[in-house]
């Protein structure tokens, strides 16, 4: 793959750190998901099958647990909550990446891009709030 010429500091930092950030969070969430799934299918295989059947029949999903409660139950070995923690961590990958860019652009005083990243961050947060109340 051809290499690009030396980049401005801002771009260089983004290209070095963004892949590291993405890969690290992806690996962490993958490990949590694997642990949760393994516990789910080994602790109560019957319940796992019953849940999949309920999903297939279109049964209503669980009401949303507060995220703090979910982390607490996950820490106590509840397989479903461990999977939920893994999924939340996975979904936070883009949020973390945008937050990282936001901080970098503030440091570099690149104001148009501070605005763009702030807008994207607020869009992601609005999504969480709308999901809770909508």
């Amino acid at each position, binding site marked *: 793959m051809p290499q690009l010429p030396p980049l401005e500091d801002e771009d260089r930092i983004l290209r070095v750190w963004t892949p590291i950030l993405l890969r690290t969070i992806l690996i962490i969430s993958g490990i949590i998901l694997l642990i949760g*799934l393994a516990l789910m299918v080994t602790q109560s295989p019957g319940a796992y099958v019953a849940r999949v059947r309920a999903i297939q029949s279109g049964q209503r999903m669980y009401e949303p647990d507060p995220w703090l409660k979910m982390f607490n139950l996950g820490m106590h070995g509840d397989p479903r909550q461990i999977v939920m923690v893994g999924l939340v961590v996975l979904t936070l990958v883009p949020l973390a990446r945008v937050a990282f860019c936001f901080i970098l652009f503030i440091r570099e005083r690149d104001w148009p891009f501070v605005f763009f990243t702030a807008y994207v961050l607020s869009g992601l947060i609005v999504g969480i709030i709308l999901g809770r109340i909508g």
Partner: protein
Amino acid sequence: MLEILGGLIALALGAGFVGALSGLGGGVFIVPALVILMHVPMYLAISASLISVVATSAGASVAFVRDGWTNLRLAMVLECATVTGAVVGAMLAGYLPNWALELIFALMMLQSAYFTISKKGDQILPRGDPLTERLKLGGEVTDESGHRIRYGVKNIPGGAALMVLAGIMSGLLGIGSGALKVIAMDYVMHVPLKISSATSNFMIGVTAGAGALVFLSRGEVPTSLVAPVAIGVTVGALTGSLVLPHVNTQSLRILFAVILVLIAVEMGWRAAMGI
């Protein structure tokens, strides 16, 4: 139990693999696979797919960003449009009936099939318009003869309008909307195809993430389904991206287009019959 778990992982592996080879992403194949083969209701398949798409985008983006194919600044500007659309789309998905989602999905599959067989060459601009130059959205790319050339970007408003639509489709249908994103960048903004494909892949993570956060906050994420699907799609996509350089994708394009048309027909049939 092993039958269900193995089936889910195998489906997700296949969807991720074909999604990576076709350049359309796993969501386009995982949603119909879950709906048609596993009999999962459409809106739950959408939530499972959105989370998987975040994983595949993050995995595939690592190499593209590191090697300089992703235009990070352009992605950050256009993400404003896709995130807005994705939140709206994910909210709508909770209220639309299954048949409407299936019908829209069928239409999107036809659009993706057309995109797959009609990709054209680049029309590279040496300079962009004043706004994009001021925001430093241009970059450099290697042309067919191996020379490095500068490319400019134009028409942010036109591209952003299509990106809002791509975001809505992503949140609504659980797909990355890569085909729409590449059309916006390649055809409307004149970004070279390789750059627009890598940049689209990068943006898909944030777009799908915005939609996935809405579903997660609503508690409408079937954990028993999502965990094996996310793991399977990610492994499938990573395998696909490793195989990709050794495969002549030109010859596979017709096959992918046929598969997409068949999915469109099946989803359209289900919408018409109210299945």
